[in-house]
């Protein structure tokens, strides 16, 4: 658990982060969304003390982060940034090995971990381990950047616009990969983004920041149904609230028992996508297929519409 208590950062007259408090539950993804200059990156960088707070404190699992030297703290926290910051003069393998070597792991264990991570990120260790970053595509570099951040198995991972430089298709794949990895390792992730759709797609909880203040920190659905501030509703947009809400729920989560006549859709698609499919095909309901390929239930058009209406 990460507790942020009354955190402030001022540069002279300028208050960049203004009295922010929040609690981040373990094994969840928290996204912090805001415009540029909202203080979201500074907030993130105060967690691993790349920026020292003017006042307030951060507790990780109950321990004040100032209790140990900053560089030792940072070795326990994963860190991935936009543009990745891969070391251009080091191979992919050496980039990934950075933190394990700082921690003094023996070389066998380091090598094992490199292989494990490259395989996890679908990069052939034999082919890619010895390459230099400039020999990789943007998507591959991004995967190496996240692999490097995860190398020493940190419990907490901080990410600052990690997908900012990717084109939309690779970006969506990278987001899926991140969700998969978070589920697999139970890492607590705090991710900063300016993209509200990304924030909603990844976040178990979403924090909205503006001018240094944390305006609201809640589940995505609550942000849509009960925005705490005009800026939050403006950021979310008023035109497609219902569709945004539907896109937060997967078909598998709300499927009622029984098969129906109509299109068959996988459990992982969102209600928004089911709605689109039903409108397109003219059917009144769709069968939901589980992860193992069997039908696990159905969703109806009226049921979907009712869920979208809660927003009003």
């Amino acid at each position: 658990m990460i507790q942020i208590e009354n955190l402030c950062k001022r540069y002279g007259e300028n208050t960049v982060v203004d009295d922010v408090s929040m609690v981040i539950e373990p094994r969840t993804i928290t996204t912090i969304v805001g415009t540029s200059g909202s203080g979201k990156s500074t907030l993130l960088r105060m967690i691993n003390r790349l920026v020292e707070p003017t006042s307030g404190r951060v507790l990780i699992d109950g321990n004040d982060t100032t209790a140990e030297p900053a560089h030792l703290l940072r070795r326990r926290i994963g860190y991935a940034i936009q543009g990745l910051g891969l070391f251009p003069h080091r191979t992919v393998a050496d980039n990934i090995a950075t933190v394990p070597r700082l921690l003094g792991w023996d070389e066998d264990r380091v090598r094992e971990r490199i292989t494990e991570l490259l395989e996890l990120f679908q990069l052939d260790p034999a082919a890619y381990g010895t390459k230099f970053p400039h020999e990789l595509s943007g998507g591959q570099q991004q995967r190496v950047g996240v692999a490097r951040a995860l190398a020493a198995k940190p419990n907490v991972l901080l990410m600052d616009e990690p997908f900012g430089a990717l084109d939309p298709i690779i970006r969506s794949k990278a987001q899926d990969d991140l969700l998969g990895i978070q589920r697999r390792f139970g890492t607590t992730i705090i991710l900063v983004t300016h993209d509200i759709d990304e924030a909603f797609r990844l976040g178990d909880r979403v924090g909205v920041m503006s001018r240094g203040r944390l305006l609201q920190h809640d589940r995505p659905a609550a942000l849509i149904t009960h925005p705490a501030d005009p800026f939050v509703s403006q950021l979310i947009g008023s035109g497609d609230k219902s569709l945004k809400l539907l896109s937060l729920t997967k078909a598998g989560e709300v499927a009622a028992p029984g098969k129906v006549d109509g299109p068959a859709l996988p459990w992982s698609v969102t209600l928004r996508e089911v709605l689109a499919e039903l409108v397109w095909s003219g059917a009144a309901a769709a069968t939901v297929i589980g992860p193992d390929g069997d039908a696990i239930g159905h969703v109806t058009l009226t049921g979907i519409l009712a869920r979208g209406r809660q927003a009003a």
Partner: protein
Amino acid sequence: MTREATRVQRIDHLGVLLSLVGALALTLLPLIVFKANRIVPGEPRALLSLLPIAAFVLYFTLAATTAVAVLIQGPRVRLLAALVGMAALVITVAMAADILTPAGNRVVRVAPGAGFWIVLVALGLLATDALTRLRPGPVLRVATLAGFLAVTLAALGSGFFDDLSIMREYAVNATRFAHEAQRHLLLALGSLGAAVIVALPLGVLCHRQPRLRNALLGVLNMVQTIPSIALFGILMAPLAALAIAFPALAALGVSGIGAAPAVIALFLYSLLPIVGNTTVGLGRVSPAAVDAARGMGLTNGQVLRQIELPLALPTILTGIRIVLVQNIGMVTIAALIGGGGLGAFVFQGIGQTAIDLVLLGAIPTVVLAFSASVVLDALTDLTRRVPR
């Protein structure tokens, strides 16, 4: 380019220019100069009447080289032609010297004339241009240099060129030459070493403190504008005073003239290129890489040693190359204040109006500077693993 265009024989502009210069030099200036002794002005001798066959072979070879230089684009052929031309030129002049020197006579001097030097430089330019077009890797470049130096030294050591005036001067000064050459390198490398030790930390400091950078680089820029002779002069008085005030310093070799002011002046001139390039090199390191390094828990020292300096190294080495080449040249002037080095021959030669002695100091200096430049260029390329 269309196929038609490539088929048309293209004329090489550099080749035309070099050929014109070479041809003019050969017709207007002497290849060989004969002197009754080492200080009288020389009189030109016609090669054709001395060595008719050798002269014919030389002119034919140079004509062929010219044809290649003008008409053929392939760099390998051009390089070969330039080297063959050089060999023919050098061998012919050495043969002429042999014929013109009466057996056992140690007073007569036979020197290559202005025509020889100009043609040699033209051929050298043709060769380096061809080498550049071949785009050799760093290792190959150093190997080529080493090969060229080895062949040159072997040729000079063979005795074939012993009748040429410069080799005559060398024979007289052989022991001193080795000593002065060693001293020359010591002065150049010593001041460079001291400058690296001081300038690297200063460069790092300048990178961290922009305000210090402007002040320090301003001062160093001013130092750079002081003419070397003037700087030697400026240093003379305080160093002499120091040596008198502290006999211990005098015992260490500090004095108003000699090596001390030379090394200090070279050291001061060396600071700006190294400090400047270190600052620029560190400034070019990707801020994301530094941020990521700090974010992953590298200490400031580790960030500097493992990330910033390795990435800035090619730029820093470029600064070191500038300094080394500059120092090798400038040590020559240090001879004027008793610093020693190859410049000693230059100034002694000027004093005696013995141009051959001047060349004995000057040519090795040029070769040293050129070699240093090639080696450090190669090192820079080897450390630049990442395309910019």
